[in-house]
């Protein structure tokens, strides 16, 4: 049984069928890539997992429990963290604070009203946040206000915010978009490395085939809201449907 099971999910925006009977089965501990051309519905699908959107029909089960109809913070508390396509960070806060907040949420649950504790007392939270910032390569920029960071750094910051929670399921929406090649390779290493040591299950949306094939255990190809194929990378490479969907856009 998969850790994330998506069955017959449909989502319509007005006249547009953004998701059409989508099925997805993500194995525990695996890296599952979702690829497909622009507008295929990849982000829409992730939105249905984290409570940003509710599917019109279908089911989304995480560890045997439905993720539909519960609030975003409950989904996160259940063990699902997400990196968004456009970085969602706390722009006015420092990088370190950005990472400490999810660490608090992990430790204290949905809320803990402690106006008389001091942030400076929370050394274990600070230490774990600093460690993750080091992992993503932002150790020297931890005091920078997030708004002042480069696009690639914001993305890495957001990844740190998710990693610090040590989630069971990590959803990544184009984690390397806007990154230079060297940074992309570092990110791949990072994602591999956290996969090994912590056994996190990952769902990755990617356009960069280099990233996809160096990471994924399994790939789903989505086009116009429909899953064309779901298979291991070797079988995806030469698949005629995939070539057709991309129309030579990527050198598969």
């Amino acid at each position: 049984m998969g850790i994330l099971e998506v069955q017959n999910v449909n989502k319509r925006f007005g006249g547009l069928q953004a998701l059409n009977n989508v099925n997805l089965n993500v194995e525990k501990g695996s890296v599952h890539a979702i690829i497909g051309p622009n507008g295929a519905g990849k982000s829409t699908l992730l939105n249905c997992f984290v409570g940003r959107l509710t599917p019109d029909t279908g089911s989304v089960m995480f560890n045997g429990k439905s993720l539909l109809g519960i609030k975003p913070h409950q989904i996160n508390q259940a063990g699902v963290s997400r990196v968004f396509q456009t970085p969602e960070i706390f722009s006015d806060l420092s990088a370190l604070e950005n990472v400490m907040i999810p660490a608090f949420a992990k430790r204290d649950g949905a809320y803990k009203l402690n106006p008389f504790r001091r942030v400076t007392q929370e050394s274990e939270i600070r230490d774990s946040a600093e460690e993750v910032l080091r992992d993503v390569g932002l150790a020297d920029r931890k005091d920078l206000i997030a708004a002042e960071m480069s696009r690639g750094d914001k993305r890495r910051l957001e990844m740190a915010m998710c990693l610090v929670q040590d989630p069971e399921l990590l959803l990544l929406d184009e984690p390397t978009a806007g990154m230079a090649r060297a940074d992309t390779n570092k990110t791949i290493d990072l994602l591999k490395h956290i996969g090994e040591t912590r056994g996190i299950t990952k769902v990755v949306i990617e356009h960069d085939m280099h990233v996809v094939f160096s990471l994924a255990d399994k790939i789903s190809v989505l086009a116009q809201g429909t899953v064309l194929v779901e298979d291991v990378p070797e079988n995806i490479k030469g698949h005629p449907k995939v070539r057709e969907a991309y129309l030579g856009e990527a050198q598969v």
Partner: protein
Amino acid sequence: MLKLDSKDTRLFLIVIAMTLLAPFILNPFPEGSNLAQFNAGYPDLMQRFVIFGIFAIGFNLLFGLTGYLSFGHAAFLGVGSYASIWMMKLLTVNVIPAMFASVIVSGLFALVVGYVCLRRSGIYFSILTLAFAQMSFALAYSVLTPLTGGETGLQLKAADPRILDFGAAEGSIGRASFFGIDMRASMELPVGSWLFTLNFGYYLAAFVMLIAFYVSIRIFRSPFGMMLRAVKSNQNRLNYTGVSTKPYTLAVFVISGMYAGLAGGLLVAMDTQVGPERMFWTASGEVVLMTILGGAGTLIGPVLGAGFIKYMENIVSKINSKTLEAWFGFLPDGLEDALITIVYPFVGKGWHLTLGIMFMLVVIFLPGGLVEGGKRIGGWLTGKGRKSKTDGGQEATASTPAE
């Protein structure tokens, strides 16, 4: 010291020193001199400085940290005042139970109002709070007259039961006191041609303000405060991060309402009367102005803003054409008249005009308020015009435009 880091400790010590020495600092001009009317060191005004300072500090906890702009905070001030005067009428003229009552009652009221209003954010939240405050005003003004005294409000009366004041002379009107010490007790201190007044009520209010200020620093520096700043920065992200934001916003709304209630209670302690106009929307707007003018999201800004506006209201508003003639009298006649004509609309009854212009200038050129202005001047003076980044939360929020 006091579980504050060195920077906050320094700020707190400065504020303590300023409030203790206020009767001297605010009275720099000798009695009878031309400039004596600019002296603000008299008890009534100094009390207002610290009481409205408390009001603004509390407002800033909500607005400065979370960005939720309440436009109805005067309602909590008013409720605190009514609670306080009823305590004095029914129980005792001692101000301590009255202050507790004002904090508790306004806190409960804020819990109800906050629960409803926080269902929305942005402009809708502001409108909801405004509606609540205007409703409270209308109720106090008419329907609830038995409780609020309607238009005329409530004062202490000789007939008040005051069941805990056993020794009180029959038929005498109570005076607010602190375990027997009259709030109006003052000591006059003539030094040369200066006259300083040390007033007990002021020092009591100042002491309460210092506690309120200290608590606010602690909230700013707590994980709770960090979450509140995250609410302002990106509430969506906070939800996807596993945080339920409502308990945080509601808690700070209630804390903020309690601050307002405490200020209302202190107003009654200093001057034992209440009227519904205390809850009018202009009073709610005033605390918004104070906070933004001083610097929303900074620690000291709201106190500065409150002091600044109360100073304008009480001092600049008293400048009249006679004063202007005295100032510009040394100039040739034509020039004198011209200057008076130019300056006149901005002083006296026109003080709102000056305030409005100041406010616009601050919002446009100094989004961080007077605090940012002070920092820039400090930066020029020390020759390093650049912005320091080591300031933690204070700087981070001070540098974002007020919303």
